[in-house]
């Protein structure tokens, strides 16, 4: 039963800011336990689409369904129930700067469980150790490096053992090694928590390393061009733009190296 209904389904969604269209006609499904990538060139509206999945911005049209239940049509209390089962890693980390790491991680536990302060602190310490930050409980976010902030934010995202983990450009601002470690961590967490993972990124290395499935959003036509496993898309997709993106502008042997770039940047 659980495997039959997709964990997340996006049906004919249209995202817009007022009259300004971001993306339209989006329809895709994410299966339970999958690592799903939302990719596309810079400025195509990937992050905005993610906002409609995590409950930050309602779509102008269409529906987002979790386990077959319409999210945006549900009353606020039910939406909150769902949100508690999400974990989200923001691009900038978005740790609450007035709280220590332990307090950041403990906040949702404090709000939604009956655990004592000591128990919450233990859980926070555990989550921090999972992301390699043992002993940093009492540091404030501005006292640690950007990479550490990102990992601490990941610890906060998994504080409540979420069903679905969302990532907005997890490797932005990280060096290649940290970025690789973060990818490994994402896979490990997926396996150990059994969570579904949705990632917005255009980092090809991590796309190929971790993705099971993906959707490609286009900036020009403002809609999705393809869905499928990124490796297959790179090798077999009918559309040149998708192959070109996934092979770093080298599709079909790439353009003549003597030719100067003709594509808009």
């Amino acid at each position, binding site marked *: 039963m659980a495997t039959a209904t997709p964990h997340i389904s996006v049906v004919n969604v249209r995202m817009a800011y007022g009259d300004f269209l971001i993306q339209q006609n989006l329809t895709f499904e994410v299966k339970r336990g999958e690592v799903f990538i939302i990719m596309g060139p810079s400025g195509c509206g990937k992050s905005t689409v993610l906002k409609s999945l995590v409950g930050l911005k309602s779509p102008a049209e269409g529906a987002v369904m979790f386990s077959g239940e319409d999210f945006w049509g549900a009353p606020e209390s039910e939406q909150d129930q769902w949100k508690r089962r999400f974990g989200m890693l923001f691009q900038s980390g978005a740790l609450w700067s007035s709280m220590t790491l332990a307090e950041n991680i403990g906040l949702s536990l404090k709000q939604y469980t009956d655990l004592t302060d000591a128990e919450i602190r233990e859980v926070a310490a555990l989550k921090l150790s999972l992301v390699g930050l043992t002993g940093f409980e009492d540091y404030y976010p501005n006292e640690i490096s950007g990479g550490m902030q990102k990992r601490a934010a990941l610890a906060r995202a998994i504080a409540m053992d979420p069903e679905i983990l969302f990532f907005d450009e997890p490797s932005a601002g990280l060096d290649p090694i940290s970025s690789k470690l973060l990818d490994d961590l994402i896979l490990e967490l997926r396996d150990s928590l059994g969570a579904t993972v949705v990632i917005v990124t255009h980092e090809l290395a991590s796309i190929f390393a971790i993705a099971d499935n993906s959707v490609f959003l286009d900036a020009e036509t403002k809609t999705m061009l393809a869905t499928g496993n990124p490796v297959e898309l790179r090798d077999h997709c009918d559309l040149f733009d998708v192959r070109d993106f996934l092979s770093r502008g080298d599709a079909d042997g790439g353009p003549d190296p003597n030719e100067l770039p003709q594509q*808009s940047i």
Partner: protein
Amino acid sequence: MTNKNNQSQPAQLSLADGSHDSLQATLTGDWLLGNGLPDADQVTARFAGASRLQRLEYATPGLGHWDSGLMTFLVNIQRNADDAGIAVDSSGLPEGAQKLLHLAFAVKEREGARRVFKRESFFEQVGKATDEMWQQSLALVSFLGELMQSFARLLKGKANFQRSDLLVVLQEAGAEALPIVSLISFLIGMIFAFVGVIQLQALGAGIYTADLVAVAMVREMSAIMTGIIMAGRTGASYAAQLGTMKVNEEIDALTTMGIDPIDFLVLPRVIALIIMMPFLTMYGSLMGILGGMLVGVSMLDVNVIQYVEQTKAAVGLHDLFGGLFKAVVYGTLVATAGTQQGIACGNSAMAVGQATTKAVVMGIVLIVVSASILTVIYINIGI
């Protein structure tokens, strides 16, 4: 390519009509920015004149150093030549310049990318500004509505914020504001007393200075001055703090966890000001009366006991409660303006600055307007 030595040769341009309807531009000297470069108009003027002109060629045997100065010259000519349908043969240019020129035209200008600034008429501007004010008032009212709902949740015990947060903001809005409130209130009291002493002494009623200072401070001035101090101090701080949290996605992070930012961030701040404003106002009144007493006792033939007795007779409990009620109203308005601007802040550092400014201005305007309304109401119901 930019090697500015001191003996740079002046940049020179000479034009010669070549064979087959072509024009040859010869560039010599050092084509460096700030070196008094020839104007591209000299070349482009020829495009319009000679209708038979088909080609433009460059010759650069005597070209020395060059930098972006040469490139802007070339790009200007190229653009005009494209419009006039004249072919440009750039093979005579240095190789680097050819490549840069190619690169500059490699990506076609995106349609609609260039901003066109049109001048708005006076009435258009007034209309837009009015509309914006209206939108802002609507935003404030709907924010007040959300705040009311949040208070309702608080009464039902369902609003979730951390008590430790409330204590921190209480301290920031209360105890830490004492020095500035003391200073301002004390000085205001002194100023009132000076005015009173000079005017009332002429009538032989100098002792009534105590009444003037006490009634003015307790009923009106202390609440207004404290309100304005809090708008500049605490309202601004709320807007900046929440605005920065917005920029940093921290507010989104709360929302995605199902925590209402109004309950979690706004409610404790509004409560803090509602609680602290009456205390600060009462304290401000006391400071004002002390300031007045200092002036009164030193300038009039009155001792401290007489001054205190006169003050006690002048103000009643209804004056005090009238003033404290105003303080609660001003506190609510200042906190609402500050938090509303913070939550509605845009996504940039500049937006945080604007939100802070708006929070202070809005706070002060709301205080002054509500002060007038409340005073009229007080007079009519006889407080």
